[in-house]
C-alpha cells in the first residue's frame, strides 16, 4: 500500500490552507483528494464579492479568492488529485478513494486532515407541510445551476430561510431577471450577515419577513403557490396571518450541515454542530485525524475557514514530525452559547488558544468571560452578539499555564 505523510480530504478553502501550512512547516509528502473537477470547492460558484477582507484586506470574488490559494498550492508543487472521491477511511488512517484513471486505491497516511465542507439542509429534513411538487430547490444548487451552468431555475421565487446563500441568491436571481417575492425566516432574527441583508435585500426592495415560515406548499407536479404565515414564540403558525405568493420556485436557505459521513463511519465523536469534537490543534478524538472548515462547524466567511485550515495544517505537521503526549482539559460553555470550537485544549498549553462560538440568541451589552476555577483568564465586553455571527476570541498562552480544571466560557453582566 502506498504511504503518504499527509492526506487532505477536500480541496476547498480549508483543505488548501491546511496543505499550504503543512508544506511551509516542512511536510513535503502531501496529497489533496478533491471530488470535483477543480480545486476550490464551493467558492467556484460564489461569483459575488466580499471574500478576503480579513485575509487580503481586499474584496474579492469567490473564484479570485480561491485562485490565490490554488496558485500557492501549485507554486509549492503540492500534489492533488481531482475527481477523486474518498469512499472510506479507517481509524488507522487508510484512505480508499476512487477515480477514473486509477480506479479504487488504498493509501496509508500518517495524518489526515478532513476538509469535506458542508451540505445544505433540504426540504425533506424540515418537512414543510403540503404537496411535494417540483420547484423546491436549495439555494446552493440553484446557485450552481446559475453561476456554473448558466440556467435560471425559476422566474417567481420565494425564499425560505435567511442564510447567506439565500440572500446572495435573492440578489443574483433578481439581476438575472427573476422576481424574488420575499424571504421568510422562522426565527425572529436573520441567519445571514447584516451586510448581506442590506446589499442583497434592502437594495432591491425584497421584503424580509422574520418569524414567518411556509405553512403550505401548493402544486401537484409543479409548484403553484406557497402560503407564508407568521409563527408564535413556539414556532406555531398564527391563524389569520396567511399570505399567498404565486411562484414557480421555493428556494431553501435553511442551514448548512457539516458533511462528516466518513467520520461517522469510524465512530468519531461529534458535537452539537454535527462536526467532530476537536482539540485546539484541530485533531479529532481519533489519533492523527484532523478536521477544519465547514465540516467542523459552518463559518460565516471564508477567511476564517482559511485560518482554521492553517491551524489544522499546523497541527497535522507537528503530529507528523513529532507526536507528543499531552493531557487535555474540556472547554465548557454556559447555556447562552450554542457550541464552542475547540471543545478541548491540550495541556500543557504551548500556544495561544482561539475559541470560536455562537450565541443561541441575540445578546446585547454583556461581556464574555473565560474562567479557570475562579480565576478570570479572559474577559471582553461585547456590545452585541447575534447567532448569525461567529464570535472569535484568543486567550494568551501565558494565562493558561498550570491549568488543571476545565475552562468555562460564559456570558455575564458588565
Amino acid at each position, binding site marked *: 500500500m502506498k504511504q503518504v505523510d499527509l492526506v487532505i480530504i477536500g480541496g476547498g478553502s480549508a483543505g488548501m490552507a491546511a496543505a499550504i501550512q503543512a508544506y511551509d512547516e516542512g511536510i513535503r509528502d502531501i496529497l489533496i483528494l478533491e*471530488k470535483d473537477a477543480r480545486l476550490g470547492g464551493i467558492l467556484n460558484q460564489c461569483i459575488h464579492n466580499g471574500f478576503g477582507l480579513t485575509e487580503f484586506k481586499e474584496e474579492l470574488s469567490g473564484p479570485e479568492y480561491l485562485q490565490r490559494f490554488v496558485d500557492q498550492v501549485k507554486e509549492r508543487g503540492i500534489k492533488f488529485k481531482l*475527481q477523486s*472521491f474518498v*469512499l472510506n477511511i479507517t481509524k488507522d488512517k487508510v484512505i480508499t478513494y*476512487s*477515480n*477514473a*484513471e*486509477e*480506479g*479504487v486505491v*488504498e493509501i496509508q497516511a500518517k495524518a489526515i486532515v478532513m476538509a469535506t465542507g458542508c*451540505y*445544505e439542509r*433540504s*426540504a*425533506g*429534513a424540515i*418537512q414543510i*407541510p*403540503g*404537496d*411535494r*411538487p*417540483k420547484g423546491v*430547490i*436549495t439555494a*446552493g*444548487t440553484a446557485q*450552481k*445551476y*446559475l453561476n*456554473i*451552468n*448558466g*440556467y*435560471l*431555475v*425559476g*422566474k417567481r421565487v420565494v425564499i425560505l430561510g435567511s442564510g447567506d446563500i439565500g440572500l446572495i441568491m435573492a440578489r443574483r436571481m433578481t439581476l*438575472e*431577471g427573476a422576481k424574488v417575492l420575499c424571504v421568510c425566516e422562522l426565527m425572529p432574527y436573520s441567519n445571514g450577515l447584516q451586510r448581506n441583508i442590506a446589499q442583497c435585500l434592502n437594495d432591491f426592495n425584497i421584503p424580509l419577513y422574520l418569524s414567518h415560515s411556509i405553512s403550505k*406548499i401548493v402544486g*401537484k*407536479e*409543479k409548484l403553484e403557490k406557497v402560503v407564508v404565515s407568521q409563527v408564535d414564540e413556539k414556532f406555531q403558525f398564527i391563524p389569520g396571518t396567511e399570505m399567498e405568493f404565486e411562484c*414557480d420556485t421555493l428556494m431553501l436557505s435553511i442551514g448548512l*450541515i457539516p*458533511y462528516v*459521513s466518513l467520520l461517522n463511519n469510524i465512530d468519531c465523536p461529534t458535537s452539537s454542530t454535527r462536526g467532530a469534537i476537536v482539540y485546539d490543534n484541530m485533531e479529532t478524538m481519533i489519533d492523527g485525524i484532523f478536521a477544519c472548515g465547514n465540516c467542523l462547524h459552518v463559518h460565516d466567511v471564508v477567511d476564517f475557514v482559511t485560518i482554521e485550515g492553517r491551524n489544522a495544517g499546523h497541527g497535522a505537521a507537528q503530529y507528523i514530525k513529532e507526536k507528543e503526549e499531552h493531557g487535555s482539559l474540556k472547554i465548557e460553555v454556559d447555556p447562552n452559547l450554542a457550541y464552542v470550537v475547540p471543545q478541548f485544549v491540550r495541556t500543557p498549553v504551548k500556544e495561544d488558544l482561539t475559541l470560536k462560538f455562537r450565541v443561541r440568541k441575540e445578546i446585547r451589552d454583556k461581556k464574555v468571560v473565560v474562567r479557570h476555577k475562579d480565576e478570570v483568564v479572559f474577559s471582553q465586553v461585547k456590545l452585541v452578539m447575534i447567532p448569525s455571527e461567529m464570535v472569535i476570541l484568543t486567550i494568551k498562552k501565558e494565562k493558561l499555564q498550570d491549568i488543571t480544571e476545565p475552562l468555562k466560557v460564559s456570558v455575564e453582566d458588565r
Partner: protein
Amino acid sequence: MKKFDVLIIGSGAVGAFVARNLSKYQLDVALLDKENDVGNMTSMANSAIVHSGYDPVPGTNKAKFNVLGNKMFDKIADELDVEFERIGSLTVAIYENQLPMLEDLAKRSEQNGVEVKLLNAEEVKKLEPNINPEVKGALLAPTAGIINPFNLVVHAVENAVDNGVNLFLNEEVVSIETKENGYVVRTRKGNEYEAKVVVNAAGLYSDKIAELVEPVDWKITPRKGQYYVLDHYKLGLVNHVIFPLPSEKGKGILVSRTTSDDYIVGPSSEPVEDPSDLSTDSMTLANVKNQAKDMVPGIPFNQAIRAFSGNRATCTRHDFVIESAPHHETFINLGGIESPGLVSSPAIGEYVVESMIRNMLPLKEKANYNPRVRPYYHLKKMKLEERNQLIKENRDFGEMVCFCEQVSLGEVKDALSRSVPPRSVKAMKKRVRAGFGKCQGGFCQPRILEELAKHYGLDWTEVNYDEENTNILKENVKELK
C-alpha cells in the same frame, strides 16, 4: 391502430409481474402507464417490506397471495437482480394486555401457513437491544424481508421488455370500447390500442378503469401513509422489521432498515379524497414519530432526510379484487391491491396468467425467453480487484457522481443503456439512488441532469424532474436572445 393480444393498464408491481409472466409466451403484449416512469405511484412509496403473511385474515386473497408471493422472492430477487434480505419481522407487544393479541396472531399465522415463533421479553431484547425495555413479548416471523421496491418494479418491467413486451409511458387511458372479441383502449393523447384481453392493474385508479367497461361492486378509497426516512445511521438500530400489533387500520407504524441501510419509519393511515394527493402534514408525522418511539425509543429523528407519503389502493371489499369484470370475462380487474400488495405481486402475476389468461388465449412458450435481467453493477459489494478490473474496462465506474450514496457515472450510464431507461431525474434516482441520500440531490442533481440531457439530446431546460413538463430549469441566461 396497434393490435395486441393482451394490454395491461398500469406498470406498478402488479402490472409489471403480469407483463413479465406474459412475456414467457408468444403473445403481443402492451403495458401502458400514465406516468413518465414505471412504478411511479404506490409501488414507489411504500414500506418496501416483503411481508411474511402472519397478518391477513385466513382464506382471503390477501392471505393466499401474500404467502405464495413471499416464497417466490428468493428466486425473483436473484433473476431480477434486486436487493432483498430476509431479515425477519418482530411484531412487538409493549403492554401486558397485548400479549393475548400476540397469541391470536400466532394462531392466525399458523392458519395462513406462516412460520412464526413467540418470544418472551428477554429473547426480544437479545435480538433487538434498542427495543423499548418495557417490551413484554414479540412474534418473530423469520420469512419477512426487505426489498428495493424501485428496482423490483423497474427490473421486472425491464425483463418483460427484454422478452418482447411493449411499454408505453405517458399514456393515460380515458376510454375503453368493448368490441366483439376484444377492446379498443383510448388514451388522453388520442392513441388507440386494440387488445383481446385487458388487465386492469391501475392501482389507485383501478375502480375508475374498471368502470370504463362496466360497473363493479367495489370502489377504491385511498388511504395515505406518511413516512420518515433516516439517513445511513449506524447499523443495528433495529435488526428486524419491527411492527406494532395490527389494528383495523392496518399493520401500524413499522421501523425497519432498508436495503440501502437507511431506516424507514411509518406509515400513518388516513383516508384521502384524491389518489394523487401526496402531501405530508406535521401533525400526522409527529404522530408517526411518537408511535415509533413507543417501540424503539432511541430513533435518531435528527437524522431524518426526508418525509414522504404514498397512497394505498384500499378497496371497499377489504381484500384484493382478482377477477374478471362481471360480464366481460376477458377484462380482468386487479383492484384494491394495498398492503401486502408488493409481496403478493409476483404471485398475482403468475395467477392472472396461468389461471385466468390461459383460459382465454393459447399460451405457447417462447424458445428464447430469459428470466434474468442483464446483471447490474453492485460496486459496493465488489472486491477491490473486481472493481478495479471493471474500472479498467470502463473508467466511468471510477468516477463518482453521487457522493452520499456513492454512485458512479458508470452506473448512471448503465441505467440509461437499458430497455427501460430513466427519462427523468427522479426515474434515475429510483434506479441508481443518486439523490436519495442526505443532500437529497443538492450535489448530484446538476450532474444527473447533464447526463440525461446528453443521452436524449435535450437542452438542459428540457430535462424533467418527474412528469412531462416538470423541467427543473427555466431558461438559459447565457444565451443571446
